[in-house]
């Protein structure tokens, strides 16, 4: 086995793709880089959905809800409390995760299409709550609680009492993220933001790659392919499903921070059911359960409508046709996961004695 190549063909291809991706802004203008930024953002979101949909096999079409919670957490903390944008990222993730935990707990046992409609309902409820500014009512309630507890920080109390999603107007003026005092402004310089998103994407890929290979990841895939058998082998199915939901939501919440920091203005129309559908399509089209496939899916679903800009009013029609053709030609997804191989040769046959 020693004379086998140190890198497989596949690994070399990935390395080349990664290098091309990183140097691409040198050759692209602001707009093209911004398209890549959007692709990167959707890739991160789709990878987080992939944990739930691809590994966990749960029909989840409401991922935009978690993304929205993350983005709004960042926007509110940044504009109304003056918290630096990057610091809000873990809070955004945690809030989205906690929300997922509370909401998913009673519905996790629902099968297939019933789960699908419930997650659609979830994204609609979140969107309507944002439009009707549920945060404002909750904040006033919280503020009363603080007063009863005798917390005397008036400035903070006032800020809490005024916290708001801005209703349909959304929130304007999210501060651009800064790292070590260096401001990364996605509007002025899309290349700077490109590196921020790329770094986060790289971390996402690494994390989910390790997750996929871990004992946890294997258990998740097991219950995805055969729930009864998994349960029979002692896998705590609902616990695994729930944790997959929370991990995916946590990561989508953090991606929400990246979105809010990039566009600096968010409103409920960015987090519709249609947005969830886009993410769903990315995962299934690219190759459900396979990281490179999901990234390719993001590139296609986000990139193609931009390439079709010159078709003007025909562009979405063309996009729809291409989508169907791709799906029909590659029913398992463009890059489906290969079945995992567990090499036998590691076991030295001479040692096996009967």
């Amino acid at each position, binding site marked *: 086995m020693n004379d086998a190549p140190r890198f497989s063909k596949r690994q070399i291809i990935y390395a080349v793709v990664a290098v091309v991706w990183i140097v691409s802004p040198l050759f692209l203008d602001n*707009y093209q880089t*911004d398209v890549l930024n*959007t692709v990167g953002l959707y890739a991160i979101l789709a990878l987080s959905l992939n944990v739930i949909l691809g590994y966990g096999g749960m029909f989840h079409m409401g991922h935009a809800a978690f993304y929205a919670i993350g983005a709004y957490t960042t926007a509110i903390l940044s504009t109304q409390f003056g918290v630096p944008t990057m610091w809000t990222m873990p809070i955004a993730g945690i809030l989205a995760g906690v929300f997922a935990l509370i909401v998913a707990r009673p519905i996790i046992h629902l099968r297939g299409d019933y789960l699908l409609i419930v997650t659609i309902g979830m994204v609609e409820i979140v969107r309507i709550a944002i439009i009707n500014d549920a945060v404002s009512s909750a904040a006033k309630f919280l503020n009363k609680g603080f007063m009863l507890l005798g917390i005397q920080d008036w400035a903070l109390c006032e800020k809490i009492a005024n916290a708001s999603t801005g209703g*349909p*107007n959304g929130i304007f003026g999210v501060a651009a993220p800064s790292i070590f005092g260096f401001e990364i402004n996605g509007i002025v310089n899309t290349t700077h933001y490109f590196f921020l998103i790329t770094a986060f994407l790289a971390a996402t890929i690494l994390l989910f790659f390790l997750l996929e290979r871990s004992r946890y990841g294997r258990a998740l895939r097991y219950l995805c392919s055969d729930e009864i058998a998994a349960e029979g082998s002692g896998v705590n199915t609902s616990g695994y499903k729930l944790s997959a939901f929370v991990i995916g939501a946590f990561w989508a919440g953090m991606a929400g921070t990246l979105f809010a920091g990039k566009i600096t*203005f*968010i409103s409920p*129309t960015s987090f519709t059911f249609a947005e969830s559908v886009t993410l769903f399509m990315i995962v299934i089209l690219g190759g459900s359960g396979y990281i490179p496939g999901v990234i390719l899916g993001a590139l296609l679903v986000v990139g193609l409508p931009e390439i079709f800009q010159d078709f003007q*009013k025909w562009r979405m029609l063309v996009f729809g046709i291409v989508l169907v053709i791709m799906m029909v030609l590659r029913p398992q997804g463009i890059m489906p996961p290969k079945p995992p191989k567990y090499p036998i040769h590691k076991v030295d046959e001479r040692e096996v004695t009967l």
Partner: protein
Amino acid sequence: MKKILFLIAALSIIAAGTALAADTVKIGLTAPITGSWAAEGQDMKQICELLADQVNADGGLLGKEVEVVVADDGGNEQTAALAAQRLATKGIVAVVGTYGSSVTEASQGIYNAAKIPQIANGSTAVRLTEKGLKYFFRTSPRDDEQGRVAAKTLMGMGYKKIAILHDNTTYAKGLAEETKALLDKEPVELVFFDALTPGEQDYTTILTTLKTKNAEVVFFTGYYPEAGLMLRQKKEMGFDVPFVGGDATNNPDLVKIAGKDAAEGFYFISPPVPQDLPSKEAKDFLAAYTKKYGAAPGSIWAVLSGDGFRVMVEAIKQTNSTDPNKIADYLHTGMKDFPGLTGTISFNEKGDRVGDVYRVYKVDAEGGFILQ
């Protein structure tokens, strides 16, 4: 001889064509060509392209042809931000659009950072011009301005129990809240303030609720498809409360949807429609548009994009340059009572259009919009 003349003529046309194509003044247009507001966006595109043809027929701009570079914003913020980045790399000297307030908000920072003067046409949210952006203008009026006219109109009608209905879009809710704030100071009772879900077709539930609240007049701040349906269903229910609409109900399709007898007596507040402007510009424009596309433009908002285009052309002409600072300065201070398609146009230091733009219209028995 004829052949030679023909050849020379043909060659000179080709030469002229290539010379002009190589060097044009590019004006961007972001519009919702696809998505829910596609009707507005496609009208905007037709209007700006028609006006560009007219400018070119009159000898162009700065000795060059004008070219409209269109980007589809899909009526969606993320697409709009991409569209703005896209146009900013296309060498445009100014940009017209876009329609929705939140979509404009997602793009205005990008244009401002790229120093491209932007002139929005349908974005009425107050906040847009309150940020001190130097290169941002709009031909559309603001919600607070319309709220003032709406409150005045409602008070003038003499009703005591007023209902306000919006549709939870940025524009409609903004207008509803501006109006509500003003009415709260008046001796009238606000019996209803809530939102419908736009895009549906059955509004009988809402109408039944309005009936039980004994509203004497309903102010609906949303868009014409919902207004038309409500007028129709209200008539069928035998509920004869007067309806007043905001300027998003200003569309001839309103009468088509509601039917003439149901639409009769409907009031709305709007900038004047081109048909009502005595100016030569408005008349010529309407004639040319109808000739080219076979129908009059749908709504006032698309026409306002035409005004944005004309204003930008005028600014480039007057300053004889494409320098963004000169254009912005001229629009802020130099432009006085420019004859637009929707009345005279000047801008204040914020980039808002100044002057009394709003009129009150009433639908007559023939479905015509009559200026009050």
